[in-house]
């Protein structure tokens, strides 16, 4: 059965409240997982596990939602800056991400800002309505 964006958002909101110990009103679509909600690296695995339980039937492979391996690839990162090939790879791997600011700074440190609640919702929408 198809789910609406609002239905998906509400479930994602619950997942993030449980995984990150944040309040419902903090989990806005624009909230950044790390900068605003305090997520750390292990929380990404926790979020993936919880999403798979909250949306039965979906399967999220390692690196699919959070393709951090791209940033460990010398082909894509040079001296802390994301290369053109790296940006192209991220655009392919994260079709719903807003990459404008990252494209401007190219700083690896800014990569986590890409992960917003809205990006999670769109990622899950693709999965549940596939």
């Amino acid at each position, binding site marked *: 059965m198809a789910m609406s964006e609002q239905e998906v958002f509400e479930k994602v909101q619950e997942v993030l409240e*449980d*995984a990150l110990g944040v309040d419902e009103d903090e989990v806005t679509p624009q909230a950044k997982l790390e900068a605003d909600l305090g997520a750390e*690296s*292990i*929380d990404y*695995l*926790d979020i*993936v*596990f919880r999403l*798979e*339980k909250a949306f039965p039937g979906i399967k999220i492979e*390692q690196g699919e939602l959070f393709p*951090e*391996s791209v940033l*460990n690839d010398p082909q894509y990162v040079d001296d802390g800056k994301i290369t053109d090939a790296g940006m192209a790879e991220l655009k392919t791997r994260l079709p719903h991400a807003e990459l404008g600011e990252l494209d401007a700074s190219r700083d690896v440190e800014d990569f986590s800002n890409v992960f917003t609640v809205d990006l999670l919702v769109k990622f899950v929408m693709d999965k549940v309505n596939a």
Partner: protein
Amino acid sequence: MRWIWIDRILELKRRERCVALKNVSAAEDVLADHFPATADRKAAPVLPNPLIIEGMAQTAGILVGHANDFQEKVILAKIAKAVFHAAARPGFTIRYTATIDSFAASGASTSGVAELIDPHTGRTTPLADIALMFSHIDHNMAGLEFPEHNFVFTSQFMDLIDQPHLREG
């Protein structure tokens, strides 16, 4: 140093659950400091709650390690939940039951229940609910190198598991 906070494993079912016991003893040094007597209060020895979490982490960590025959280095990465209902005093036994919620190449999540058993009455009461996340560190620490030998599962743990009643048929 003996850093082992479970005494005996009762059950170990692959990728499902692990059940362990811990006897709380007044002979354990930590109880002398937690909490000593003060001018207006007598001593109140209880096993500190962080060590109850550690006991669950060891129980659940063995369960997660056993899933891949202890080939992975399993590190406690997150305490997702720890709610306590009672205090663990000397002379009581803690029973830890850990179950796997999710399992992936990079790590696992577990749920656990700790119960307090009174050996005198046989009565069992809830002690804590503890949910944990474990990381398989060789899959997650890009660029960092760890020793090849599995420093997580030392002989202290393997001896607990190497028991006739735990061998798989």
